C-alpha cells in the first residue's frame, strides 16, 4: 500500500511559477497526528501543508478538496519508512521518514496528491496500485504530470528527465501545448481522447526510464485526478 516520493530534480524556466493560491482562504485538512509528535512538529507540518496549498491554484484545489471531504482525517507520522514520505491508502496516512522530510513542501505536496487520488478522484481508491504492483506507474506518472502541468512551462518538466532527448523535448512540447505555452491550465473536459493517447505514450516512457516506478502499466486506468482537477473550470489566476 505504499507510494513513494517522486524524483524531483532541478527545474527551470524563464518565467517562475506563480503563487496563485496565496490570497485564498486557508485550507484546513483534518489530520490525525501520531502520538509521538510534539506540538512543534505538528505546527511545522501544518505550516508546510499550507505552504503546499499556497504554491498555486492547482495545489490549492487539491488541498481544499481534502479539507472538505467529510469524515476524512489523514494520519501523519514521522517514522522509519521507504523514501522520504509514503502515503498508505489502507490507513489513509502519510509517514515521513524524518522531520526534515515532514516539512519539505514538495514532499508534502506529492503525498497529498496521492491522498487526493485515493480519497477524491478514484472511486475505488488507489490501494490496489501499491509499490511494484500493476498500476503503480500509472499513479506515479499522474502525480509527476500534475507537477509538470502546475509548473506551466515545458522547460520545467521533470518527469522524463532520463528519457532520450528527442522524447523529453516532445514531452516538454506537449506540456506547452496543454498549458497554451504556460498561460493557462488544460481543460480535460474537452479533447480527452487526444490527451489520453499521448498520456499513455509518455507513461510508458516514464515507466521505462524511472527505475523507482517501473511497474506494469494498466492501459485502462485513466488519470482520474487530473481529469478532476483540470476540468476546465480552473485557471492559474484561480478563477473557478
Amino acid at each position, binding site marked *: 500500500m505504499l507510494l*513513494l*516520493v*517522486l*524524483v*524531483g*530534480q*532541478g*527545474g*527551470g*524556466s*524563464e*518565467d517562475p*511559477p506563480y503563487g496563485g493560491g496565496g490570497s485564498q482562504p486557508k485550507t484546513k485538512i483534518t489530520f490525525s497526528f501520531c502520538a509521538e509528535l510534539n506540538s512543534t512538529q505538528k505546527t511545522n507540518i501544518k505550516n508546510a501543508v499550507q505552504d503546499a496549498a499556497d504554491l498555486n491554484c492547482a495545489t490549492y484545489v487539491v488541498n481544499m478538496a481534502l479539507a472538505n471531504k467529510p469524515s476524512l482525517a489523514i494520519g501523519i507520522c514521522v517514522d522509519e519508512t*521507504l*523514501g*522520504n514520505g509514503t502515503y498508505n491508502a489502507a490507513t489513509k496516512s502519510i509517514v515521513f521518514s524524518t522531520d*526534515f*522530510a515532514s516539512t*519539505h*513542501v*514538495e*514532499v508534502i505536496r*506529492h503525498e497529498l496528491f496521492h491522498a487526493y487520488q485515493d480519497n477524491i478522484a478514484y472511486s475505488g481508491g488507489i490501494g490496489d496500485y501499491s509499490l511494484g504492483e500493476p498500476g503503480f506507474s500509472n499513479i506515479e506518472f499522474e502525480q509527476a504530470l500534475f507537477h509538470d502541468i502546475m509548473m506551466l*512551462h*515545458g*522547460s*520545467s*518538466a*521533470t518527469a522524463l*528527465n*532520463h528519457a*532520450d*532527448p*528527442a522524447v*523529453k*523535448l*516532445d514531452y*516538454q*512540447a*506537449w506540456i506547452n*501545448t496543454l498549458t497554451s*505555452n504556460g498561460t493557462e491550465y488544460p481543460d480535460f473536459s474537452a479533447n480527452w481522447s487526444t490527451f489520453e493517447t*499521448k498520456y499513455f505514450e509518455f507513461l510508458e516512457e516514464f515507466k521505462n526510464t524511472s*527505475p*523507482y516506478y517501473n511497474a506494469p502499466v494498466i492501459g485502462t486506468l485513466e488519470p482520474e485526478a487530473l481529469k478532476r482537477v483540470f476540468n476546465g473550470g480552473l485557471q492559474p489566476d484561480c478563477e473557478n
Partner: protein
Amino acid sequence: MNIFLRLLTISTIANVVFCSISEAQEKFVQGLQTVDGKTFKVTFSKSFDIMSVDSRLPIYKDGYPQPQSPTPPLPIRSGDMEVDTVVDRNIFFDVLESKLDALNTNKEVVIINYVFDHDGNILDISSYGFPKNTLITPKELAMIDKRLRKEVKASFKGREYLEHPVIFYGREIRF
C-alpha cells in the same frame, strides 16, 4: 577519359562536397550533423512543431547517472537552485545579433536542457528544442553551445541537490 572529362568530374565532386558542408552549416536536417567539430543529432517531432537537437557528449549517450539510493532522493526546493540566466540569454543574443528582429517576427522559442554537476558547472547540455522552421543555423548553435558550456554556471543551497548525481535544469529563451 580525356583530361577535360577528368577535370569536370573532379570539379563536380568538389562542388557536391562543398555544397553538402555549406548546407550542413546553414540548415538543420534529420540525422547526424557535424559542425565545427561538434556533432548534433537532429530529430523532427512527428507530433509537435519542434525539432530536437541532441547535443550530449559521447560519454552520456547511454544516459546520465541515476541516484543509487533504494528510493528517490529529496527533490530540490524551489529557490535552492539559481542559474546564470542573464548569461545564457546574452550569449544567444550576442551570437544571433544580426537576426534578432527576424527571430522575434518568427516568434521563436528555444528550449535548453542543461545538466549540472554539484559545483554548478555544466556537465552537459542534453538537448536544444527549436521550432521546425527555426532561423538559427547549426553553425550558430555550435558557437552558442561552445560558449554556454564554458560560461553558464549554477549555484545551489540546501542539501537536497547533493542526493542527485546530476542536476537537470530546463530553460526557455524567447526572442
